[in-house]
């Protein structure tokens, strides 16, 4: 069915079709709507979900953990401060291997207080052992929400679907919804080997684990992250085969003959694709690498994409606040260390607190990358693009 939906509406629709057993949530702009709309589905009897409106995100994530440990399929939604308040529990979910899925709307972290888009919230949680997939538009947000439930349950890892505040969450787009019956068929039942509700086989979850076995348990969690990429690929392919929409791990756009490229994440991918077209109309061979799966970081696929060009502009809608620039920039530099073909790289931090990024601005970045190619030099590795007083 083809409909017009905002990102929040589309994720809520996906949740309706997924029909999770439990949703526990606390409202926060601009993600409130996802659960608000979902609660209406609960109210109207369209889902079988136990809906738990709690008193904070810390409680929301905790309630999700409890339910997931009991064997339930569990989802929630939040943004920014809400994810930050969940931080402690994020590690509980991943450590206990509870496949919870969060429909997340990316909003800047305080302070200063802001409600608009950047990636500081999810990136501050990048080391929490959650899968993170960043989407470019409403359709991808919808599709990825469904895929991630399956991926998370197969890998026994929790996951976050990221959508840019307002640009995706509140922007209305054309979306193809799947048939209501197809989604549960695609997902199947959540199968659990051990659960708290199996009263004949009582188990203990989350107990003290000191020098004797903590390390082995942590290692097995790391191992799960090491082996999840093939699961993501498999589920994406299955989704594509069934519904006709295929997603890559790394979204390469016009990269095969590109001389310079930009790497970006989220809705900027869409803006940059238009910039690529315009540059190509002017005869300039440029490309785009959009990082879709960010956690785990897809080293191999990313390395292949990054080394296709001589000059790379890495656009980060976040800063690590470490003097080392943005998150993608650091990840890219890290994986390129062993590579014999390293492109010249420049990091463009942009769009913090929702500052707009235009097609024209991205074109100026491409122009600059060509200048770098010509001179063979990057005079400043990290720049703060579009900020006053720079």
């Amino acid at each position, binding site marked *: 069915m083809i409909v017009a939906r905002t990102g929040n509406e589309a994720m809520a629709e996906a949740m309706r079709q997924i029909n999770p057993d439990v949703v526990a949530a606390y409202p926060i702009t601009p993600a*409130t709507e996802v659960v*608000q709309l979902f*609660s209406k589905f609960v109210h109207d009897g369209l889902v079988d979900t136990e809906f738990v409106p709690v008193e904070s995100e810390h409680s929301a994530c905790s309630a999700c953990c409890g339910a997931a440990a009991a064997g339930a399929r569990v989802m929630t939604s939040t943004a920014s401060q809400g994810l930050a308040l969940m931080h402690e529990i994020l590690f509980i979910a991943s450590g206990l291997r509870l496949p919870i899925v969060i429909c997340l709307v990316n909003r800047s972290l305080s302070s200063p207080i802001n409600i608009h888009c950047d990636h500081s919230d999810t990136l501050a949680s990048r080391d929490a052992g959650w899968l993170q997939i960043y989407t470019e538009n409403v359709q991808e947000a919808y599709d990825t929400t469904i895929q991630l439930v399956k991926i998370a349950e197969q890998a026994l890892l929790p996951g976050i679907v990221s959508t840019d505040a307002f640009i995706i969450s509140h922007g209305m787009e054309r979306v193809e919804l799947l048939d209501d019956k197809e989604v549960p068929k695609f997902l199947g039942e959540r199968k659990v080997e051990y659960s708290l509700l199996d009263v004949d086989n009582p188990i203990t979850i989350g107990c003290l684990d000191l020098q004797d076995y903590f390390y082995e348990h942590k290692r097995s969690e790391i191992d799960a992250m090491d082996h999840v990429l093939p699961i993501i690929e498999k589920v994406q392919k299955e989704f594509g085969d069934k519904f006709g929409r295929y997603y890559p791990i790394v979204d390469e756009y016009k990269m095969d003959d590109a001389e310079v490229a930009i790497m970006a994440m989220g809705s900027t991918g869409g803006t940059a694709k238009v910039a690529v077209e315009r540059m190509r109309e002017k005869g300039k061979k440029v490309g785009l690498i959009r990082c879709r799966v960010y956690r785990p970081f897809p080293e191999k696929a990313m390395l292949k994409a990054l080394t296709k060009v001589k000059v790379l502009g890495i656009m980060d809608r976040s800063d690590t606040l470490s003097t080392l620039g943005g998150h993608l920039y650091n990840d890219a530099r890290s994986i390129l260390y062993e590579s014999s073909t390293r492109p010249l790289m420049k990091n463009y931090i942009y769009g913090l607190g929702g500052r707009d990024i235009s097609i024209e601005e991205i074109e100026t970045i491409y122009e600059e990358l060509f200048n770098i190619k010509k001179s063979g030099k990057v005079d400043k590795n990290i720049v703060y693009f579009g900020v006053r007083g720079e």
Partner: protein
Amino acid sequence: MFPYEKYLRLDKFPHIWCTGCGCGIIMKAMLRAIEHSKIPKDSIALVSGIGCSSRTPGYVDFNTLHTTHGRAIAFATGLKLAKPELKIIVVSGDGDATAIGGNHFIHAARRNIDMTVIIYNNYIYGMTGGQASPTTPLGKKASTAPYGSIEPTFDISGLAIAAGATFVARSTCYHAVQIDKFIQKGLLKKGFSLIEVLSPCPIYYARPNREGTSVDMLRWYKENSIPIEVARKMSDTEKERKIITGILHNIERAEFCEEYRKLVKRVSKN
């Protein structure tokens, strides 16, 4: 006319509050209380969390600190201990103070730390679009309680008294003059003072509950408020669903910052 301008950051206007919102009534009462208590403007620090009510510090010209949802009292505790000479006022919503920030609220009352907390109780999460809060009355509708809330409520003033606050008063936005008297008393009291003010949210509380306009809500406050002195002589059934207003609690008890200073003196060598 009362000189509100001298306390306002006029460049920050127009404010974000909806027409008929009670937030402005409480903010003005607070300014009158400050003026009448003769506390110099610069010795006041106004701290808030997040919510419609918590937007107050943006509009007034004091030392102001706008923090995170639920944590205003925790921030204020640090501020007060670092600068005990400041008069600390915390403005908060029912959700901010008793849902996500409930623990800070009861512990500050328990410690009896010197600050004046003004809670704008509109029975709802205003800022995020009308979800039920811990004060949404039983049976009343909210966006997360379409069939009416089934959760028993917190009595904010009662909670503060039980936790150890030394000054507790309740009023409503209809009783605008009374609010400023209570805030004044709270400011002059050494210890944890709580002023709970019932405040209309015509958009997200009155509308789904068909309680009319802001004026209708003010009228409801007027008709259903009972001064504590009268309420003491009434039976529980007579008091049901009524708003008991007045100074509910006013006692003396050791204040935390003073006790802390005494301790420091006692254990430091010279």
